[in-house]
């Protein structure tokens, strides 16, 4: 009986810890605590980007990368550089939209939310050694992902979050 209770106690502590780490990772996303750089010209309708995420647990940094990628494409944009990359502006014309449409984005960026439909990992989960950096107590992990920006923009337009090019005409 005692063993069972102990196991349950350990399980609860582990679950709470995981939940806390996820919340921390989500807070980092909301605070734009991630970096995005272009990783090449993606195929038609997609952006190929490398997302640098921070977490004490390397595994969380990898899973949060997809959320950060979609968040960044909507609100942050990214700068150009090598591989023929050109700086791209964010899909949202105003950064205030995140606050104005808080309810929409809360469910959109929830775990397993709709954002998952528009992003996929390009490296099959393998992280290059150079993309795994220990900064103080945290890991800074770089993951290459592909974001279906055309489909994402269409979804945001249909949801009334951003204006379409032909809106009003």
């Amino acid at each position, binding site marked *: 009986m005692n063993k069972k209770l102990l196991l349950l106690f350990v399980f609860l502590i582990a679950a709470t810890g995981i939940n806390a780490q996820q919340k921390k990772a989500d807070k980092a996303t909301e605070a734009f605590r991630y970096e995005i750089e272009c990783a090449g*010209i993606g195929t038609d309708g997609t952006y190929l980007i490398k997302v640098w995420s921070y977490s004490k647990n390397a595994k969380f940094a990898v899973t949060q990368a997809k959320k950060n990628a979609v968040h960044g494409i909507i609100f942050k944009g990214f700068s150009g550089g090598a591989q*023929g990359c050109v700086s791209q*502006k964010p899909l949202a014309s105003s950064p205030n939209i995140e606050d104005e449409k808080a309810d929409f984005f809360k469910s959109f960026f929830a775990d397993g939310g709709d954002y998952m439909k528009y992003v996929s990992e390009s490296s099959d989960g393998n992280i290059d050694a150079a993309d795994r950096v220990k900064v103080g107590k945290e890991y800074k992990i770089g993951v290459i992902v592909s974001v279906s920006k055309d489909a994402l923009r269409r979804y945001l337009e249909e949801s009334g979050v951003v204006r379409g*090019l032909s809106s009003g005409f």
Partner: protein
Amino acid sequence: MKKNIIKNALVLIAFFSMSFTFAQAKKPTIMVVPSDVWCNTNGYMMVFDNQGTKTKIPDYKKAFQENADLLLVIGKINTMMAERGFPLKDMGAAMKSLESESAENSMLTSKTGSGVVENPIDKLKKVAKADIIMQLTWTLNTTGPKKSVTFNLQGLDAYTDKQVAGAQGTGAPSFSAELPVLLEEAVLAHLDNFNAQLQKHFDDLFANGREITVRIKKFDSWADDLETEFGGKELSAVIEDWMAANTVKGRFSTTDSTENMMLFEQVRIPLADANGKSIDARGFIKGLQDFLKKPPYAITNKLMTKGLGQATIVLGEK
């Protein structure tokens, strides 16, 4: 009772569909056009003698018939714009359609044998045109075996001559990629930024009204001119007062004003009139035409327009 409910529902549906129709602004047409620089570099120019001066003009027909890369780039841009819900006017197709229309006009006769009337101005206006021109230029750079493409896309408002959007840059040099691949990459890399600026231009249009150009001219047969006084006020001042009263927030610039002509630029007109009907330069300046026709001015005048954003009133005759 049932009949009344259906009747009320129908009235409501009609009302909402009318409001929806009226709330829409007139959609500008956009067309991709190769720039003069590109046509000159690639040998698609015509030379003609303009009263002793050799003048070069782009030969678009030849460019569209001979350059497959041009078709590829324009086709790619058209496809991507259509995906954004904004299909473009195709220049090659517009030119063909004008040619076939000219052929049809020359053959068209009524049952009594009358032909279609076309004056010199009508002929001059028969060119492929759009409200916004996407001017396209690219150059192929070679450094040893490496190739890269410098790409330049400019969105020009056909009436105000302002650049309303643009995207420029040079792609990554490549040893192996073919020119069409480099061009396709350039379009993919630059079009989103171009569209972001175009969106800003449209947002400004919805917030501050459409920007148009208005010209006032006079026929030489008219005895009066723009300095003629009506109730102690010169006609040019009367027209300026009308513009101030009817433009959005009174915004317009009188660029030129003489006794024979006036040029108004940066004229901001509302997208819909007082009845909620969407208007363009023609709809707006029709108000001035009617105003001048009425007493005390009673000036007969002719109204001509070009697309959505340019209007000219010629005073004195029809």
